[in-house]
């Protein structure tokens, strides 16, 4: 037996790139292509003139790249009879986005805080119904909401659609903050109570300064979610105030005459830019947002 010992090599095991490893990377690269191709197609198409597009070489790089389609999409593409481009929608989207994000996060933070630490009578029922609300198809709420909002003259207005975003953002925002506050030691809250802190003092001076991470997560979720909304903008904002997604769909799907694919794709990219920037800038926070919204606290 000891004779074999001499012939046995004693150095490190030779490293070899196994077949499995190659297959692993091959799979990942192919998957990456699947996810990237539409983005690539979108970008190259927006840079091509129409006669180049008619050749039907979807993946070819533009021979004569130009930004004409982008300018047209921005300022003179037609949605129905209006030919003011997609920038009107972008302004509307911003006007809807900013107050909606602030309102929904504020209400969600206070509700989550009250539910997590104070738990007054009925808190569990409230939370249960809120949670259910997060999953119920919006179609059930729409018509009565339209009637209610027109009763208070908010239908077909920006405040109206902001209000709707706050209503339907509440479950997720509450869940987010409630779970976050559930992770804060209850003893901290008790100490603040013993020190004489009231409801708002504890919230504003103790909890809110601790909440930066979850506020960032909530903002990421709400900015992408509200910017990407189509249904509420279509139904509650009114023709004058259509957000970008609705205008984009009108530009692409209801234009008369020949379809200008390059303009369409430029408009699509313009609409996608805000959430894409949020995604790439926020990086891991975006993933945290998904996890925070998805996993129980």
């Amino acid at each position, binding site marked *: 037996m000891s004779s074999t010992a001499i012939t046995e090599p004693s150095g490190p095991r030779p490293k070899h790139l196994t077949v499995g490893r190659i297959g692993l990377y091959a799979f990942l690269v192919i998957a990456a292509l699947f996810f*990237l191709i*539409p983005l690539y197609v979108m970008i190259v198409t927006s840079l091509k003139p129409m006669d180049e597009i008619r050749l039907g070489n979807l993946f070819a790089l533009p021979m004569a790249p130009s930004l004409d389609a982008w300018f047209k999409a921005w300022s003179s593409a037609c949605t129905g009879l209006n030919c003011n481009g997609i920038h009107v929608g972008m302004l509307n989207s911003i006007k809807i986005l900013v107050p909606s994000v602030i309102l929904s996060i504020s209400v969600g933070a206070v509700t989550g805080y009250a539910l997590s630490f104070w738990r007054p*009578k009925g808190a569990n029922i409230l939370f249960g119904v809120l949670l259910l609300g997060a999953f*119920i198809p919006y*179609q059930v709420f729409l018509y*009565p909401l339209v009637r209610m909002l027109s009763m208070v003259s908010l239908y077909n207005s920006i405040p109206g659609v902001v209000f709707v975003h706050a209503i339907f953002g509440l479950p997720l925002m509450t869940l987010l903050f409630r779970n976050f506050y559930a992770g804060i030691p209850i003893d901290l809250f008790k100490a603040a109570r013993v020190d004489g802190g009231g409801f708002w003092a504890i919230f504003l001076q103790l909890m809110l300064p601790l909440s930066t991470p979850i506020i960032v997560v909530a903002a990421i979720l709400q900015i992408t979610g509200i910017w990407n909304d189509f249904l509420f903008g279509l139904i509650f904002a009114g023709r004058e105030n259509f957000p970008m997604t609705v205008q*984009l769909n009108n530009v692409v799907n209801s234009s008369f005459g020949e379809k200008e694919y390059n303009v369409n794709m430029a408009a699509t990219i313009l609409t996608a830019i805000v959430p894409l920037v949020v995604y790439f800038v926020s990086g891991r926070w975006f993933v945290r947002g998904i996890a925070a919204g998805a996993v129980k606290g």
Partner: protein
Amino acid sequence: MKPRFLRFWMAQLALAPAWLIVIFAYIGTIIWTIQISFTNSKVFPVSNYVGFTQYSRLFASERWIISVQNLAIFGVLFIAGCLVLGFLLAVFLDQKIRAESVFRTIFLYPYALSFIVTGLVWQWTLNPTLGVQQTMRNWGWESFTFDWLSRGDRAIYVIALAGMWQASGLVMAILLAGLRGVDGELWKAAKVDGIPTWRVYVHIVIPILAPMFATATVLLATAVVKVYDLVVALTNGGPGISTEVPAKFVIEYLFQRQNLGLATAASTVMLITVLCVLAPWLYVQYFRTPRSAS
């Protein structure tokens, strides 16, 4: 000591907006919707009760039946596809590979995009005259045909594909977090026991990830029932009515075809379906282990 209610009156006050939203915007609207569904309202709600007439009319409507069928096809393909693709991506990303964060970023970015953008991009990429089909033919594959968007019997599969493209990254992110949470010593124990890697995944890891699969499934299922913008952008229900879905059916009968009774009946059916699927999961997830009272 003051009674509990009085002690917490400020907390109750702070919850007032949430209560108002729940009572009026959620419960109130649901009751109102259900009430309308039992009337023969057309443009405006009337209180002319007709029992279940709207429901029988609904299920006699070909458009509704097609919508429900499409929802089933889309739902099964979309959920299964996202779970399988998302799980594979997560597992492959968890093998100590290079440039993991680059891959992760690529797999997840579509989830930041709206369904409208997703639908329009895929509508163009798979455009039957100038999209992938024509490109393949230009490259010399003359007989290549991929015209599913213009075929009534296939267009729904394209919608499912676009949905998978958008949401698989979500599943990947959730499951990757789960995989990273698996105790490293479990892997060691399995190695000492001589269990092949794939069996560890099947018999040990997947059961551990079960709650995450459940969460992902619920999130995807919610998206399935709500699916509206994707269809509007990608096919607008066409060709013909071959890709109609319930959410679109309701919106159209509410706001364009002015048939409130039928539309509310349809949305009530959607509501009941969702509640049946959801109730057990919600119970397990949130109400079995409440935090002990302070």
